[in-house]
């Protein structure tokens, strides 16, 4: 549980990890804390000590936006979860507020990216139906 610095973690994970997908010369990451699914240190939430993730946990769940913050050695408590089921016609309030909290506490660039991601996920929702995430 000794805190391993994010630089060391990235050094260990950049060549090989279970979230890494290499296609056509591009590197992607299915890391749940990665906002762009890009395999880059800046976006690799898994290699950072404080990360934000926007995703739905399981494929069979309805598209649900969760915000996760990585916290040290307690995976279960890692998820500061804001479960937001996407409703038709705009973000639900809690999601917006949760993102605001992120802006205040950390990297503004990441918050923008997180917001973008939420918008994209939101726009793929088909109203009334429960769809499974295809990612």
């Amino acid at each position, binding site marked *: *549980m*000794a805190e*391993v*610095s*994010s*630089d*060391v*973690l990235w050094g*260990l*994970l950049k060549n*090989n*990890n*279970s*979230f890494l997908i290499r296609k056509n010369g591009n590197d992607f990451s299915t*890391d749940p804390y990665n906002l762009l699914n890009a395999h880059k240190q800046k976006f690799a939430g*898994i*290699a950072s000590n404080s990360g934000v993730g926007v995703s739905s*946990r399981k494929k069979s769940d309805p598209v649900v936006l969760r915000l996760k913050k*990585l916290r*040290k*050695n*307690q*995976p*279960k*408590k*890692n*998820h500061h979860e804001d479960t937001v089921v996407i409703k038709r016609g705009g973000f639900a309030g809690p999601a917006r507020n949760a993102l605001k909290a992120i802006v205040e506490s950390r990297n503004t660039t990441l918050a923008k990216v997180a917001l973008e991601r939420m918008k994209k996920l939101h726009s793929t929702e088909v109203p009334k139906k429960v769809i499974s995430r295809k990612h």
Partner: protein
Amino acid sequence: MAARPVITVFDAKTKGEVKETVPLPAVLTAPIRLDIVRFVHDNLAKNKRQPYAVSEWTGHQHSAESWGTGRAVARIPRISGSGTGRAAQGAFGNMCRSGRMFAPTKIWRRWHRKVNLKQKRHAVAAAVAASAVPALVMARGHQIDSVPEIPLVLDGIEKVERTKDLLKVLASYGAGDDLARAAKSVTLRAGRGKSRNRRFTVRRGPLLVYDDDKASVLKAFRNIPGVDAVSVHKLSILKLAPGGTLGRFIVWSAAAFKALDHIFGTYTQTGTEKGGYQLLRPVMAHADVTAIVKSEAVQNVLRPIKETPEAHDRKANPYKNKKAMDRLNPFHKLKKRIEMIKAKRSV
């Protein structure tokens, strides 16, 4: 490190009940040296190999002799005898049909590798340390989202007798997802290994580390796909970092966890069980480069940021850019005008 962080020991029987807290053993803070782990793993993985080779006499069980020169045939040894199609055919060479292969494989190939004891120990320490970092365990592929704490230490897990009880214990501490992943992954092996007693492949699930060799759990875990068990006194890099990848999900028994300091020693004391073993010291005490750069001590000594020099415009070609030409040669405009007027007049 000032005060050592503390790890919770949970009660295996009762879900979520905290038995006690234990200070973090020093091994878990050992530097995570992927290079050492890779090297040691690659070499030790070779030690379970069984020799293979072709038969010594394959291809040579003939009394073939070369016919030499002067008979309008290649000089390759030829099968002696007559009365059959086989006679006079080439023999022995790797290029000949039914000849011996090039460089027949021998059983005295160097199959096994010796690795220095110290290196092996450093590798194990690194792997154990890596298993205590949730990011690494997740990145290795284990599903540990529901695990209350990493490292996961359970008191009383060694006493579990029945497989189904062990399954219950593991599930109640969040290991169920990882077990499910392993169970789901059982597939027929691709390739010939199928018919060579390696029929199925499975993912690696949690690793149970125990202390007592006679623990009843040692029979309980056997039928659960993906689960291995290893004594804390005989930790193996092959189990701690399967495939050379750091960060296996480990479920420690309380006794095993507490024994770690005694086995590996600390930074102030060499290991007892691993006689005289001294844990590696990290190259950097604080490896967070960003934090170092942002720290007061560094910021105070930095020179102020240089002002970025004014960027100057890209040079405009006066022969193409009228404004640029005007700037340089004001007469040019007039000259052009005169020429234009002349041309008009002469038309």
